[in-house]
């Protein structure tokens, strides 16, 4: 079957929401089982005492990127039907910086806060509640941020095209960089004082 199987009409789109629940379950399970329901484990990356975030995040990115390229190579997926987010340079940077501050304050991102709430962490639930307020404030103040929101529009470019290389070569370099990061992270973790949590 050539994927994506819903968009290409192989399976009725009525099934899409059921798959959403199942995929979400896999997502939540992977995050929680890796330790992402603990803000103190997540934040360890930024102080060097636990690099679980770096290891899980980049391993997942490599597996998914390589997997998509293989499926494409084997003719099992129609890359043109995949949703690739449009790039708005300015808002991607400013939004990312704002999120980074929230991340450092709370030790959660939206997905991990949900996992924390699901296993009974009240701080996870409170973070998730805070997100509703933040999203509401942004939506209400949208006219103020509208220019920023739409500025720096680039279409939906792929990062390899920026460097003028093939997707395969870029992904190969990504794998090398990630392995380098994993080795470096393990080295730093051995040097840094343990934090009990």
């Amino acid at each position, binding site marked *: 079957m050539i*994927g*994506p199987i819903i968009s290409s009409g192989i399976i009725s789109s009525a099934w899409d*929401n059921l798959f*959403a*629940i199942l*995929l*979400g379950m896999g*997502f*939540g*399970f992977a*995050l*929680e*089982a*890796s330790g992402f329901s603990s803000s*103190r484990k997540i934040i360890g990356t*930024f102080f060097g005492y636990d690099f679980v975030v770096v290891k*899980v995040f980049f*391993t997942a*990115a490599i*597996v*998914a*990127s390589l*997997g998509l390229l293989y*499926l494409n190579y084997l003719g099992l*997926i129609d890359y043109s039907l*995949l*949703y690739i*987010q449009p790039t708005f340079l300015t808002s*991607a940077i400013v*939004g990312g910086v*704002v*999120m980074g*501050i*929230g*991340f*450092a*304050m*709370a030790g*959660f*991102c939206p*997905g991990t806060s*949900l996992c924390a709430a*699901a296993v*009974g*962490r*009240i*701080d996870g639930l*409170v*973070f998730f*509640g*805070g*997100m509703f307020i*933040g999203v509401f404030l942004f*939506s209400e103040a949208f006219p103020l941020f509208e220019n920023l929101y739409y500025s720096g529009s680039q279409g939906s470019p*792929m*990062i*390899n095209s920026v460097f003028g290389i093939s*997707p395969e070569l870029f992904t190969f370099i990504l794998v090398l960089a990630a392995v380098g990061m994993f080795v470096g992270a393990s080295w730093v973790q051995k040097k840094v004082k343990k*934090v009990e*949590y």
Partner: protein
Amino acid sequence: MKKINNDGTFYLNPYLGGVILGTVLLLSFYISGRGLGASGAVKNSVAATVNAVAPQHVERSAYYSQFAGGDKKPMSNWLVFEVLGVLAGAFLSGIIFNRLKIKVEHSPKITERRRLLFALGGGLIFGFGSQLARGCTSGAALSGMAVLSLGGYITMIAIFGTAFGAAWLFRKNWI
């Protein structure tokens, strides 16, 4: 594959956890043609709530009207169902690895109240930023990286780069 954590609970080996997460993400693209997300479900919930309370306000808003009002059904959305699944999957993992416990997790050096205030503030700021960047760590950064999206990489670098610096500012909360 498992290692014993300080409190006697188990975590998966991080690389195994990453392979599982990456495989779920790959399946998401293969089945539904899109990546995983989280903040989008909050956006749709907020838009649906405002639409229920003040439908004219939604119609007039250049932001809400993209997701709610008219024939749009913001709560019957792929991401909303996916996020319900996230809760269920994390709960299941909590049962299997014996981590279900109602508590506020915080450094012994700070009070519960301080932790909750920072969690609330951090959530608010993260929620705000996720709208500006059109997605969060999962929807914009991770899923974007999987399809080699330039924006995904930029958002990822902005989030992690800023958090590295900002974590130092907030270090009293953590170490």
